[in-house]
């Protein structure tokens, strides 16, 4: 997936192309503003952007020898990339810190308020309290629940009802604010953002998707959405937020503002910074950007992404949202070894993860398709409120669904020691000696059994409700819910194994490695492996998943179990469904995204795909020097093609070049306004010199500078495998088809996508944006 664009292929425009240095000769040929930009919902021309950047770089390097000022300019131009990465890291880290602290506070706002300091959440409220007991570490007098504030007591059925009511009320209020803000100010701020960013990074333009209003609204509503208790995470939206920061900061630097290809390099690095602050995993962030999000990832971007990710992680750490200089909640500190036999349950967890991933993708896509096509999609606000109400009403009674999902995961990852007093760690301590940290396997007490029941109910609720939550019109991510599902399944299996090993330590499978009184099984490790398996099953991440998990947990000795589970889950999920969740959403929305990971295995030829087809009218071409302004304008108004080939003459059909519709429109309008004498009957020419004209004809219009003199061509008998490969590797928008040297037809990226869809028996009309 990382085709490195070879820098030796110099496809720059020769003789009068855009950005060429031969412009000194003709002062009339300065670039018109607007030429070289793209319309909304169009694909960029990677080759043109890259060659423009190379021209610009060459110009600066040549000029730098002239004066010191030019030398400084060239040095600062080289430095600007690094400065931009630094700024992106700083901004992303600060925004992530803001989101984390606010989300923690607002989540606890549903349960009560801290009268010892209104801005503290529950944990920080009881931080310095002297009234915290060993058994009940949550209660302290400074923290007042709503029933304590309203009816001055915390005991009794009425207090429970008051707490329940306030919880649901706050959840509904937060969800309502979130969806209203999204609807009124920035509709692009909803959803996860990663499928759209993948499409943007492959060359598509969605104006406003990475703008400042989207950034502000996404940040604010993400906190509200997470605090409302819905089953969603904030990792995917954080990637969107970081890419918005990247896009906005690009406007400060000329080099990146004007060039769409360079901007996408910056966006890849910003995506890495986004994952880095979401998880506290800089290396995992870079690998995630490489594997999942980016389309072209030159090696230079690797180093810069790492720098941006590190700066972001460092900024977040210095804001210190969690105290103790930790970056994420899930930092585990156990290092107990695992045994070879335990690979069997780990692989079982992998199979579970794969099954759940395939199930989730299928049901979520079906629900999202319903939302797109039926009446359900007309009531987004009502939908959000209903889902929030159901989630809040079902979540309050069970303490494991009431707590925020990140807290749940960190509690499940935790290994139980003597100092833990949660229900999950209620083991019977029947041993005589105290060994400090390493406790032997103990039989489960009453608390553990009831925790298991509650966790099973939590699992079912989360599996079902996440299907309906992901894709709603509020910012929603799915990393945390998937990890929660996996962690619960893993912990259940781990406690089961632990009790099995304790009560049946004389069985053959346990005898060899698990003696009585030893610490054999760590349920926390099973939770970790389960979380990795489920996340891998849904997103189909491979290397990046393993790296993120061991950066999250600090457990380097657990790489083999994590890899075993991730691989098993990916194989099982791939056997049941081809695509990950993000690719499935891309296909659902019909974005023109050319999948770079799959092979094209059919034996069709270029002439089977090219337009015009057999019964269509002939290809619309422009001639190089015999069309008038009026002719061109009528062609533009009658057709909707985004570009036209230019040929020597209609009889010979020999190719000269390719010109884009947008550039034509802008140049002709500009010429009519600024150049005197240009009228409808003026002749347009694309050659170097004006054609010989009879006297008393209006002046001619030269449009050579908008002509692409090196369009890509293939012959009509080229296999489609090669054509698809060319489109992928070079990032083409269109490719001309010739036959015996004469222009025959054109293949655009949308034609390629429709052909692939047709070959895979999908609906080719689902490719939108035509």
């Amino acid at each position: 997936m990382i085709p490195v664009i070879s820098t030796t292929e110099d496809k720059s425009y020769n003789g009068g192309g855009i950005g060429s240095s031969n412009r000194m000769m003709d002062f009339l040929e300065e670039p018109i503003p607007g030429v070289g930009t793209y319309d909304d919902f169009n694909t960029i021309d990677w080759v043109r952007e890259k060659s423009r950047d190379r021209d610009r770089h060459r110009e600066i390097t040549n000029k730098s020898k002239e004066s010191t000022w030019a030398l400084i300019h060239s040095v600062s131009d080289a430095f600007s990339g690094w400065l931009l990465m630094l700024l992106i890291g700083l901004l992303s880290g600060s925004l992530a810190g803001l989101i984390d602290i606010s989300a923690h506070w607002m989540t606890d706002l549903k349960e009560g308020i801290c009268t010892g300091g209104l801005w503290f959440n529950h944990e920080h409220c009881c931080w310095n309290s002297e009234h915290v007991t060993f058994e009940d570490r949550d209660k302290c007098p400074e923290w007042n629940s709503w029933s304590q504030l309203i009816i001055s007591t915390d005991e009794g059925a009425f207090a429970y009802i008051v707490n329940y009511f306030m919880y649901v009320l706050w959840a509904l209020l937060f969800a309502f604010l979130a969806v209203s803000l999204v609807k009124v100010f920035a509709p692009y701020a909803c959803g996860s953002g990663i499928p759209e960013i993948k499409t943007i990074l492959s060359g598509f333009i969605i104006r406003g998707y990475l703008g400042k209003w989207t950034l502000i609204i996404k940040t604010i509503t993400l906190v509200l959405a997470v605090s409302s208790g819905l089953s969603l995470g904030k990792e995917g939206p954080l990637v969107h937020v970081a890419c918005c920061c990247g896009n906005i900061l690009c406007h400060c630097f000329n080099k990146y503002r004007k060039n769409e290809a360079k901007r996408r390099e910056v966006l890849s690095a910003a995506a890495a910074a986004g994952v880095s602050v979401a998880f506290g995993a800089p290396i995992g962030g870079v690998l995630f950007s490489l594997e999942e999000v980016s389309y072209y990832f030159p090696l230079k971007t690797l180093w810069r992404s790492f720098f941006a990710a590190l700066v972001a992680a460092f900024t977040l750490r210095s804001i210190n949202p969690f105290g103790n200089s930790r970056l994420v909640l899930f930092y585990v500190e156990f290092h107990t070894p695992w045994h070879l036999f335990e690979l069997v349950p780990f692989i079982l967890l992998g199979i579970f993860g794969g099954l759940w991933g395939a199930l989730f993708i299928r049901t979520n896509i079906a629900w999202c398709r319903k939302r797109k096509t039926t009446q359900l999609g007309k009531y987004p606000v009502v939908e959000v409120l209903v889902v929030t109400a159901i989630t809040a009403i079902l979540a309050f009674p069970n303490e494991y669904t009431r707590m925020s999902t990140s807290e749940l995961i960190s509690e499940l990852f935790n290994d139980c020691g003597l100092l833990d007093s949660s229900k999950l760690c209620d083991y019977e301590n029947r041993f005589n000696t105290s060994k400090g940290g390493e406790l032997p396997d103990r039989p489960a007490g009453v608390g553990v059994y009831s925790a298991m029941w509650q966790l099973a109910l939590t699992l079912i609720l989360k599996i079902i409700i996440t299907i309906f939550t992901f894709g709603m019109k509020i910012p929603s991510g799915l990393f945390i819910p998937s990890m929660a599902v996996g962690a619960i399944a893993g912990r259940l299996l781990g406690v089961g194994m632990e009790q099995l090993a304790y009560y049946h330590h004389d069985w053959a499978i346990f005898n060899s490695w698990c003696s009585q009184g030893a610490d054999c099984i760590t349920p926390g490790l099973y939770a970790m492996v389960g979380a990795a398996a489920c996340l891998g099953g849904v997103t189909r991440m491979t290397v990046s998943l393993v790296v993120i998990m061991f950066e999250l947990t600090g457990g380097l000795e657990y790489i083999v179990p994590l890899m075993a589970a991730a691989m098993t889950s990916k194989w099982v999920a791939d056997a049941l469904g081809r695509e990950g969740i993000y690719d499935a959403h891309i296909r659902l929305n019909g974005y023109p995204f050319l999948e770079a990971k799959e092979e094209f295995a059919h034996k069709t030829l270029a002439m089977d795909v090219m337009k015009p087809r057999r019964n269509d009218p002939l290809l619309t071409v422009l001639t190089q020097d015999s069309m008038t302004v009026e002719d061109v304008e009528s062609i533009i108004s009658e057709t909707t093609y985004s570009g036209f080939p230019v040929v020597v003459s209609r009889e010979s059909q020999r190719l000269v070049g390719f010109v884009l519709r947008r550039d034509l429109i802008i140049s002709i309008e500009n010429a009519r306004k600024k150049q005197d004498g240009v009228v409808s009957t003026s002749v347009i020419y694309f050659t170097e010199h004006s054609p010989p004209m009879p006297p008393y004809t209006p002046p001619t219009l030269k449009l050579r500078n908008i002509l692409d003199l090196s369009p890509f061509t293939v012959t009509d008998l080229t296999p489609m495998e090669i054509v698809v490969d060319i489109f992928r590797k070079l990032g083409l928008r269109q490719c001309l088809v010739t036959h015996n040297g004469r222009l025959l037809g054109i293949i655009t990226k949308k034609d390629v996508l429709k052909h692939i869809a047709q070959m895979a028996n999908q609906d080719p009309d689902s490719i939108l944006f035509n």
Partner: protein
Amino acid sequence: MELKASVDYSDSPYRLDIHEGALDLLFKGWQGKQNFEDVRCKCICPPYKDNSGHIYNKNISQKDCDCLHVVDPMPVRGPDVEAYCLRCECKYEERSSVTIKVTIIIYLSILGLLLLYMVYLTLVEPILKRRLFGHSQLIQSDDDVGDHQPFANAHDVLARSRSRANVLNKVEYAQQRWKLQVQEQRKSVFDRHVVLS
């Protein structure tokens, strides 16, 4: 200040009841003096012999953060102290309550501003415009009867303001252009379901 002693902490100054009122609560919470210490050494000691488990907190420097300095009324005597302290786990923790306070204030103020702006755009502005432009607006709005979106009149204002060029009208022009963009986005996301299912 009346205290209702229905839970354990009857002597704590933080128990409030309904007679106190919301203002008092906010005032007390704003001062929050007790909770401003940002450094602590937290020692958790499990149950030992007859003593139940206990948690000790003390504002102490990092080098002194151990069982002997923090566990102040030592519950066991003599030789048992070492055994007791071996089971205890002491951790030094830092936080910045100023950062938390500032962040929450920033977030709430941005949220408040956005909510006010949203209320203005959806409720106040149409009323103002109807009063200012009177009849002509009513005739024009017959064309887009079904359009209840907040930025429905952006087109006409855009057309009108194109001729004038001073600062205030530039701001209004930018605002109307932004409203058009948001309306386009809203159409593609919510109505046609083209982007973002």
